C-alpha cells in the first residue's frame, strides 16, 4: 500500500573515499511501502548509498533520515541482504543457523535467544517457504533456495525497510521471476524495499520508484519518469554515443 509518507530521506548527502566523491550532494525522498530501485552505471554510488544508510560508510556532508530519526538511530528498522557470491557454501551451518543470524544484531553479544526470537526465525522460514529445509546444510540447496535463505535472514531481523545489494546478480530466469514475485509480496505487505539494480528492464518491470545516480543525483521519482531517454542518456552516456553518431567521438 503505497502512501505519500516519506520513510527514507537524503538531504545533501556527500560520501568520499579518500579525495574522490562517491556520492555528491544527493537529495531525494523514498515513499513508505514502495519498492525503489537504485540505478546508475558502475561506480555511480549504488552500493555506497546503501552503506551510507546502514551507517557503515561515514558521510562527509548532509544527513540521512529514516522516518524522522537519524539513520544510525533507526538501525533496528533496517534489514540488509548483501550480494550473494561472497559466502562460502561449504560453511558448516544449516538453513536455520543462517536465518538465526538475523536476530544477532538485536541480541547483542550476550542475551540468550528467547521464544520471541525463535518465533521470528520460524515465521521467516515459513514465509520464504524453506521451513522444511531448516536442518539442511546450505550447500544442499538450489540457487533459488539459497537466495531465499538470505531473504529470510533479513525478514528475521524484524525491520520494515529492506536494503538489497544487487539481489538479481547471478540469478537465472526462474530465480529472477521468483525474486520479483517475493519483492512484490513484500510491497503488498507494506514493507519498503530499496534495491541496487543493474538491469534497467528489470527495474522498469519490478519497481515502482527509481533513484538514478551518477555520483550526483540524476533523477528520482516514479520509475518510468526516472528512466526517461534523456535521463538514461545523461547517467550512462553523458552525451557520448558508442556508434560514433552525433558526437562522433568516444571520450574516455
Amino acid at each position, binding site marked *: 500500500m503505497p502512501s505519500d509518507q516519506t520513510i527514507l530521506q537524503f538531504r545533501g548527502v556527500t560520501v568520499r573515499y579518500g579525495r574522490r566523491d562517491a556520492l555528491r550532494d544527493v537529495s531525494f525522498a523514498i515513499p513508505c511501502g514502495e519498492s525503489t530501485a537504485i540505478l546508475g552505471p558502475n561506480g555511480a554510488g549504488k552500493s555506497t548509498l546503501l552503506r551510507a544508510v546502514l551507517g557503515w560508510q561515514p558521510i562527509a556532508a548532509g544527513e540521512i533520515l529514516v522516518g524522522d530519526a537519524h539513520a544510525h538511530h533507526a538501525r533496528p528498522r533496517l534489514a540488509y541482504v*548483501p550480494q550473494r557470491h561472497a*559466502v562460502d557454501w561449504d560453511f558448516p*551451518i544449516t538453513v536455520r543457523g543462517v536465518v538465526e543470524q538475523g536476530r544477532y544484531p538485536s541480541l547483542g553479544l550476550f542475551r540468550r535467544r528467547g521464544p520471541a526470537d525463535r518465533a521470528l526465525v520460524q515465521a521467516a522460514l515459513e514465509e520464504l517457504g524453506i521451513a522444511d529445509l531448516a536442518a539442511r546444510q546450505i550447500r544442499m*540447496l*538450489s540457487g533459488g533456495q539459497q537466495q531465499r535463505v538470505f531473504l529470510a535472514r533479513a525478514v528475521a531481523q524484524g525491520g520494515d525497510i529492506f536494503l538489497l545489494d544487487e539481489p538479481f546478480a547471478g540469478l537465472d530466469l526462474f530465480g529472477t521471476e521468483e525474486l520479483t514475485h517475493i519483492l512484490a509480496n513484500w510491497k503488498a505487505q507494506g514493507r519498503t524495499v530499496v534495491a541496487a539494480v543493474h538491469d534497467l528492464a528489470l527495474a522498469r518491470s519490478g519497481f515502482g520508484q527509481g533513484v538514478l545516480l551518477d555520483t550526483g543525483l540524476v533523477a528520482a521519482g516514479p520509475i518510468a519518469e526516472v528512466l526517461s531517454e534523456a535521463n538514461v542518456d545523461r547517467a550512462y552516456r553523458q552525451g557520448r554515443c558508442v556508434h560514433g553518431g552525433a558526437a562522433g567521438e568516444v571520450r574516455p
Partner: protein
Amino acid sequence: MSLHDLLVAPFAYEFMRRGLLAAALLGVSGGLLGCVLVLRRLALMGDALSHSLLPGIAAAWLLFGTSTTALFFGGLVAGLLTALGSALLSRLTRVKEDAAFGSLFIVFFGAGVALISKLPTRISLADFLFGNVLGVGPDGLLLAAVVCAVTVAAFVIFFRSILLETFDPVFHRATGGRGGLVHMAFLTLTVLNLVAAMQTMGVVLSLGLFLLPAVSAYLWCDRFRSMLVLSVVLAVAGSWVGILLSFHAGLASGAAVVLCLGAVFLASVLLSPKYGALAALRRGHRPRRFT
C-alpha cells in the same frame, strides 16, 4: 608392557604431568582457533605466521638467555610485526595481503635462521624448533593456562561476532559489527597461541595442533558449534596420545603430536560419510549437492 605402563606410569613424572596438562590446555585453544583458520582459508597464513616467530625467539635467546618470558615476548613481537605489518602493507600499497605476508614472513624466517647460526649452543634450540615436552617448566604451564583462558573467553564472549565475521563479513559490518577489529584480535590470538605452543610443539610444527583437528572436524560437522567442540576434543586427545608416544618412543613431542593428529585427518578425509574421499568415489566423483 601393560596398559598401566603405557598410559598411567608416565604420569609418575612431574615433567610429564606438566607437559600433558600444557598440551591439553593448548589443544583446547588451538582446536577453537583452528576452526576459524580453516573456515576463513587462513591455513597457509597461519603456517607463515608460525615461521615468522623465529627471529624474535632467536633474538630474545641471544639477549636474555632461555627465560620463558623473554622467548614469549620475542616471539610475540616478531609474530605481531608480521601479521599487522602485512595487513598495513596491503592497505597502503597495491601489494595484496597474501604476497605481503609471504614476503614479510620469509624475510623474518631468514633473519631467524641467520641469528640461530650465531647462537653459541644449538642443542636446546632444537627443542624450540621441534618441541620438547620435557622442557615445559612451571612458567610454560602458566603461559599455556593464561593463553588458553584468554582464547576460550574470547570465543565465549564474542561467539556471535566470530561466527558472523567468519561466515559473512559483509553482513557483519552492515549490522554494526567491527569486522577489522575482530580480524586483528584474531591474528593476535593466533600469535599468542603459536608462541605458547612452541615449547610442546616447536615453532615449525605448532600449527599442526591448530589446523589438523579443525580440518578433521570440518569433514564431519554441519554446524559451527559442533565443529568447534569436535575440533577441541580431537586436539586434546591427539596431543595427549602424541605426547605419550613421544615419551615411549623417544620422539620429538611436536612431531609425535602432529603424526597422531595427521592419522585422524587421514581417517577423516577417507572415511567421512558425507564429505570423505571414499564416499565421493562411491558417488562417482560428483561433489555433494542438493537433491
